[in-house]
């Protein structure tokens, strides 16, 4: 993203998508119906994809839309509708006041911790020059900066991921399968 040309527009859109994503996330947590909650979460994920593009990661933004909003959330909606959980009466909702207070306290503590961490300084030696990532994307395209490390330094992790996916597929099939006795 060209920071240099229109920095104000860039910042405006970053905040816009950030605020929309936070509002959608809040609506997601507070909705009674699981279907509405899932759709608000999809909205959050679309906004996050836009933020990834603004943060010079267009490929990650694309797979965010494809994998998260497109595949994972569709599976969630599919399960909600398969189990017929859409009725508001079915929804066992938020816990009691005590749990809400504890959850709120933990949320505030987490926020405070992370805001304290944002203030921390990182060594300048590690920092890339301004606009480096954008220049890299412009030079080699969106995919090459990720594909390079993925298939060189992280090749072993990549292969292990394939084993993980295979295990997940087998596990999902076995867990979802009806027992022989139930089927009859």
């Amino acid at each position, binding site marked *: 993203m060209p920071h240099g040309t229109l920095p104000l527009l860039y910042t405006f859109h*970053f*905040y816009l998508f*950030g605020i929309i*994503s*936070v509002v959608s*996330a*809040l609506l*997601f*947590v507070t909705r009674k119906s*699981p279907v509405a909650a*899932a759709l608000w*979460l999809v909205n959050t*994920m679309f906004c*996050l994809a836009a*933020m990834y593009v603004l*943060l*010079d*990661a267009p490929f990650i933004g694309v*797979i965010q839309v494809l994998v998260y909003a497109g*595949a*994972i959330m569709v*599976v*969630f909606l599919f399960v909600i509708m*398969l*189990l017929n*959980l859409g009725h508001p009466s079915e*929804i*066992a*909702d*938020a*816990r009691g006041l005590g*749990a809400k207070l*504890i*959850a*709120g306290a*933990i949320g*505030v503590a*987490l*926020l405070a911790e*992370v*805001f304290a*961490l*944002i203030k921390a300084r*990182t060594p300048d030696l*590690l*920092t*890339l020059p301004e606009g480096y990532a954008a220049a*890299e994307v412009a030079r080699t395209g969106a995919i090459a*900066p*990720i594909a390079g*490390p993925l298939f060189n330094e*992280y090749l072993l992790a990549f292969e292990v991921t394939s084993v*993980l*996916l295979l295990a*997940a597929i087998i*596990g*999902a*099939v076995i*867990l*979802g399968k009806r027992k022989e006795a139930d089927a009859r």
Partner: protein
Amino acid sequence: MLGEALFFSAILFAIGVVGVLTRRNAIIVFMCVELMLNAVNLSFVAFAQAYGVTGQVFVFFVMTVAAAEAAVGLAIIIALFRHRQTVNLQNINLLKG
């Protein structure tokens, strides 16, 4: 943009934590976990912009693991629903002594 991105990431993560702690519907709790993963991904991408593209590779792995987790977790929820006819976490207390 690093500070702003971390700011939004922190807020989204806290919302996810509060959702996990307050909701009783197993599927919504599960979606809150996905929201937390997304918040961490945002941090990764923001750091990748400042400290090198490797962070984006981690996002890639996080997404893969999230997909595997969603598949297995939803299969567990379906098996649980078939067994108990509910996804209310209050009624699923088999492991409570």
